[in-house]
């Protein structure tokens, strides 16, 4: 691991920027699911690569914290490595790959399979915070739709799928309602992960860097995925199980193994997979 960088502020951001983000975070947890605009700063990573999540992490993290960073569920994907290194260098904090050992988990596109506990904070990187964006691209309009709780257009969009395909065809970034008030984007996690958000004991924070929005779901808050009485929400399932740990209950990545297109399936959550293997080796 690289040494701690000198000449930069603790966790990169200056104190005034952190205070601004912290105030936005307090508003975000007080109004669950509402997108709080904040004065997003430039980070030394590109927009869309996790600058929102990083600004939240930088504002929340302390010397005593242990940080885990995942991308696509894995600790060793290049972007996860790069962000973990960034905080190891600029904040000198301890890092871990073990979900249960982490105080803060910054994630892109997944919620860990290991259930999170109260006291942990899950920080999502969000590219497009506005769940209504592809229905109405103007913020000046969507802000009114949220104010009036006018979400019919999303129901119509989902129902068009039902009419056409027989069920809802949104498979990731599947919109949710938070505490029955605000429609919220869960970030591009697979809908497989949506049920984990509901009444999660951990605090969930969301940061969108170039869209300059922060939002939050406090612990134990109701989060429901949109659906219809005759077409209830359902998650993906696989006929296969993980080729490494044989898990049948985790989200599986498909891996193409040869030119003939042979495939195998492995856990997207590398820590979960490793722990299962360790357990199996301990209790054969």
């Amino acid at each position, binding site marked *: 691991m690289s040494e701690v960088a000198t000449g930069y502020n603790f966790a*990169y951001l200056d104190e005034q920027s952190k205070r*601004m983000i912290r105030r936005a975070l307090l508003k975000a947890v007080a109004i669950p699911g509402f997108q709080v605009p904040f004065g997003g*700063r*430039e980070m030394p990573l590109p927009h869309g690569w996790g600058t929102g999540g990083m600004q939240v992490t930088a504002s929340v993290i302390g010397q005593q914290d242990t940080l885990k960073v995942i991308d*696509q569920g894995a600790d*060793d994907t290049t972007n996860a490595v790069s962000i973990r290194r960034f905080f190891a260098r600029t904040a000198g904090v301890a890092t871990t790959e073990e979900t249960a050992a982490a105080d803060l988990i910054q994630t892109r596109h997944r919620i860990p399979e290991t259930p999170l506990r109260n006291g942990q904070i899950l920080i999502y990187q969000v590219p497009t915070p506005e769940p209504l964006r592809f229905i109405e691209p103007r*913020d000046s309009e969507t802000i009114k739709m949220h104010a009036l709780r006018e979400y019919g257009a999303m129901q119509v969009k989902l129902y068009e799928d039902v009419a056409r*395909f027989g069920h809802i065809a949104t498979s990731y970034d599947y919109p949710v309602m938070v505490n029955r008030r605000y429609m919220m984007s869960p970030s591009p996690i697979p809908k497989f992960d949506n049920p984990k958000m509901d009444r999660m004991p951990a605090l969930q924070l969301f940061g969108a860097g*170039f869209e300059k929005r922060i939002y939050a779901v406090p612990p134990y808050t109701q989060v429901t995925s949109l659906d219809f009485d005759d077409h209830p929400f359902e998650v993906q399932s696989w006929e296969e199980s993980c080729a490494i740990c044989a898990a049948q209950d985790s989200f599986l990545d498909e*891996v193409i193994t040869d030119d003939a297109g042979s495939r195998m399936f492995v856990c997207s959550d590398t820590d979960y997979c490793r722990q299962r293997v360790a357990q199996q080796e301990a209790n054969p």
Partner: protein
Amino acid sequence: MYVAVKGGEQAIDNAHALMRKQRRGDTKLAELTVAQIQAQLPLAVDRVMNEGSVYDPELAALALKQASGDAVEAIFLLRAYRTTLPRFGYSEALDTEAMQIERRISGTFKELPGGQILGATYDYTHRLLDFALLAEGEAAQAAREPASSEPLEPCPRVLELLNQEGLIERSRNEGEQDQTPRDLTREPVTYPAERTVRLQNLVRGDEGFLLALSYASMRGYGDSHPFAGELRTGRVSVALVPEELGFAVEIGDMLLTECEMVNQFHGSATEPPQFTRGYGVALGRSERKAMSVALVERALRADELGEMVAYPTQDQEFVLSHTDCVSANGFVSHLKLPHYVDFQSELEMIRRLRREQQTSTQQTDAEQNDV
């Protein structure tokens, strides 16, 4: 056992080392110094300063060197550095009428009080490759160049001449005080955005995007009909009022390019027909940028002037949300990051839809066969 093909620390380190090597290129050639870039590629440096939002030619030159000459990457480096700088205060409004002018032209009047001065420009060069430069003959050639022309005395802006006749809108009403502009680097833009915020956004905006938008507005996607009222480049002094002193202190000067466009306006229920203004300013010698800002700025005033907002060039949210090259580059390039999980979700969905469609087709076929 299967080992997932995922990246790692070593791969990143190797990539950085390769990048450094590629940037340095052939080591038999002398290494380019930051001072050389600053002195000999000043227009590239100016672009990086503008979109990087930092007036510091040396750091902009360093960024260009570090970015292998990629303007967008250099702009990003400068922006990220900017974030870490403490904010000491805000300068007083610049007085561009007091500019030490090195170039000033107008497309609207032949003769002007204060005169026109062509200064240094590529405008009338014939775009023929100068093979003398290839033969490294510039030193000899430069020696023959005339000494630099005398700078103009500070002079009023051209559009103020029209103002005396009341033919052009006032940039502010009688007795109106300057508003303290918001700072879009400290608070997010909300729509509709005030003119000061729009201008800040455009000055930081991607030059290519703004050039294309202004081109579109002149080709009919926008009701613009512009004239270049005045374009001036020169040094302007910058003053700051320190909290503890309470009076303005000059802290330096900066090279700026300012452009005022004159546009037709047919009048409205409350306003007589008159000319309207589009304003643009840019750091350094950045005429294309200043003109583009002025053109797009005017197009974005459609709403406040009661013109129909019919084209993207007139649509604040469309333009202002997409000007930033750092954001645009980041979001486009983020597609290079893994999206295994989302893609897997889509794969599962497509397979399922196809399976269902196949089943229902087979069922229909079976039913038809039964008949």
